[in-house]
């Protein structure tokens, strides 16, 4: 998480529909990997991967590559909203 906001940072908000916690919100540099945001969001929502589920970020209805940068997802936008998804690995 950034402690010092820069002018080109992106305001990131992550929601998780089945959590008792409110949204995770923080500012990230455009070079930050989505996987970094995912990790911080999972800490915020107090969830962990296990053999049945993994957690991913979704943006605009699609899973997000954890190796993508926040800047590449946001493009020109200054704010970005993700949803944390609980991805079922069995079935």
């Amino acid at each position, binding site marked *: 998480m950034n402690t010092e906001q820069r002018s080109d940072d992106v305001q990131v908000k992550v929601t*998780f*529909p*089945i*959590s*008792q916690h409110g949204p995770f919100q923080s500012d990230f540099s455009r070079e930050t990997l989505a996987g970094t945001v995912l990790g911080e969001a999972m800490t915020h929502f107090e969830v962990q991967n*296990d053999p*049945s*589920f993994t957690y991913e970020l*979704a943006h605009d*209805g*699609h*899973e997000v590559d954890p190796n993508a940068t926040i800047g590449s997802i946001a493009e020109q936008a200054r704010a970005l909203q993700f*949803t944390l*998804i*609980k991805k*079922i690995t*069995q*079935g």
Partner: protein
Amino acid sequence: MTIDKESRLNLETDEPEVAALLVEHGGLLDRDDRLGDETGDAAVYWATMRPHWAPGETYIARIEWFAYPYEPPSIKFATGVRGSLSVTSAWPVITGYRAASFDICKPMCREGYVTHLEWKEGSTAWPTQGNPFLWVVFTMQIDFNDNYQGRAA
């Protein structure tokens, strides 16, 4: 099936976010008792869903609640709103969506928990916090957008 007043109120609180999500992805949410006659069931929703990469394909999911948010819903695909629930071609080909047995074998619906009793405990247990209705439909929409392989035969 009718639902208790608490469930009905909880669903009415959560359904606007579900409806907004579906509209955002070219779909629609109908509640059965709002379809224009007096035979409808307030426990039943019809979610019109479209895959991102095949927007011309329309799927109708019948989502029936029993005690919301405490129990998972039954999810079946129909040939249309109030259509047949026993037509395999109404189902999408997505991992875990089993057209041949008309069920979704995932820990997010009644059918999945009936098949796998062990899912009732631990991380696979049905979530009762937040907006489980939104979680179910969002999970299905992600499946349609990223894991859709076509229409079942």
